[in-house]
């Protein structure tokens, strides 16, 4: 268990310079969530085009894991269909739970694979997935 596994350069990069950070003018879905014990907060806004996630933006504050996960997650799903996003989330969950997962599908999100070695931090990495899940449920 080494710190470098957790705080990979790409994670710190996304923490300090998050992608898709901000708001969408007229989002189709919006949701938020928090980890009260550590104070992590994520809000997400989505814009759909047919079955596809045309745009996604987030705001929030919290630790490097929760914020970089939001940045990486939004990058990963932008442009995908809802079904693809759901499959990706499933793989991401598998990764965090220490199950087998499809690395190809996750892409850069795989940077968070070592979070599972830090049980106290798994919640941080899962927050944006929970928020995204809520938002996707708003899509009819």
């Amino acid at each position, binding site marked *: 268990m080494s710190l470098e596994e957790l705080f990979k350069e790409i994670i*710190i990069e996304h923490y*300090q310079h998050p992608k898709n950070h901000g708001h969408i003018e007229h989002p189709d879905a919006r949701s938020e969530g928090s980890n009260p014990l550590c104070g992590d907060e994520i809000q997400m806004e989505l814009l759909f085009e047919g079955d596809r996630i045309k745009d996604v933006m987030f705001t929030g504050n919290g*630790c490097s894991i929760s914020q970089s996960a939001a940045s990486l997650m939004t990058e990963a799903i932008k442009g995908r269909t809802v079904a693809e996003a759901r499959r990706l989330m499933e793989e991401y969950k598998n990764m965090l739970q220490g199950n087998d997962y499809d690395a190809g599908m996750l892409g850069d999100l795989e940077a968070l694979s070592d979070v599972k070695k830090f049980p106290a931090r798994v919640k941080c990495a899962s927050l944006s997935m929970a928020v995204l899940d809520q938002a996707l449920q708003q899509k009819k």
Partner: protein
Amino acid sequence: MDIEKIRKDFPILSRIVRDRPLVYLDNAATTQKPSAVIEAISGLYRNYNANVHRGVYLLAEEATQAYEDSREAVRRFINAGSTEEVVFTRNATEALNLVAYTWADANIRAGDEIIVTIMEHHSNYVPWFRLARRKGAVIKIVPSRKDGELDMDAFGSMLSDRTKLVGIAHMSNVFGTINPVREMVSLAHTRGAAVVVDGAQSAPHMKIDVRGMDCDFFALSGHKMLGPAGIGVLYAKSSYLKSMEPFMSGGEMILRVTLEDVVYNDLPWKFEAGTPNYEGAIGLKAAIEYLEALGMDTVEAYERELTEHALRSMKTVPDIFLYGPSDPAKKGGIIAFNIKGVHSHDIGTILDSEGIAIRAGHHCAQPLMIDCGVSAMARASFYFYNTEQEIDMLVKALKKAKEMFGHVA
């Protein structure tokens, strides 16, 4: 104080964590236990365990004696007038809720005012918040000044004849501020308000004199002062306890039960329904005896030195912000901080990888977090078994954390 000898009394302090010796700096959350406490507990279960107050046999006499001896030890430790005034609870939280459900429920009405400070732990805030909602009473919050001390002018002008209750953290679990409770009690009493002092953080670290303080209620938690989990104390003036309805009911707290009526037991047992945590009380007694043998003055003086050292050396961490009073005479050994660019949760993980245990989060003091404009802080908190070397290790690890997050930005 022979620190090497003292550290040997605490078995956990020789534990290796993440390949490093444990550096335990989360004492405001809970403290470690000396062998004397661990052995008091196993001694009970090996030798004289029995339900208290009930048996006519030797074991029960011994267990009852030990339980009531603990009450006397607590009385002495906080300088209460009588063991009648010492009620055992699970923790400080239950002690405060007891007051909310009994005295406050019976005496606070719509339009009455409850004053608490911005520094309160949720345990000395949420019970009053809920009570106020239920009753239509009003909560007022004493703000803190820039220097981390209470704004006593604001307190003075908030007090009025509508004030029925004042709740004060004796020592803040975030800022470490030691609040001027004696002065606040006497101001509150001129308005006829009752005062509840939350001593969860003060009792472990300084001499407590509830009679000198003249507070009406005082709460503490055993686990924060070397004692086991599951035991706390409510001190209350007997004049209050006498007038109060019981909190919980059941065995032990009654004198007589018929189908027509119930007669409650004498103080303090009227407030102890069911089989008490006599194990916890017996462990707490061993904890108090350990603290008394050291001397609370010694504990306080040693911790002040540690705090001075910490305040001085933590300042050398780049971009660190220390919350609370910067004058070590005004505070206990609790230092909350943030480092720009490194979230407290990340600090916690980085320190953990070096075997250093600190806390990160809102510290059950969200009103204070909001007031400080943050959602979380890191916090190091000391006890007399900590050393300056440990603080130096903390500082070194904080610098490393800053570096880890600094090199990219």
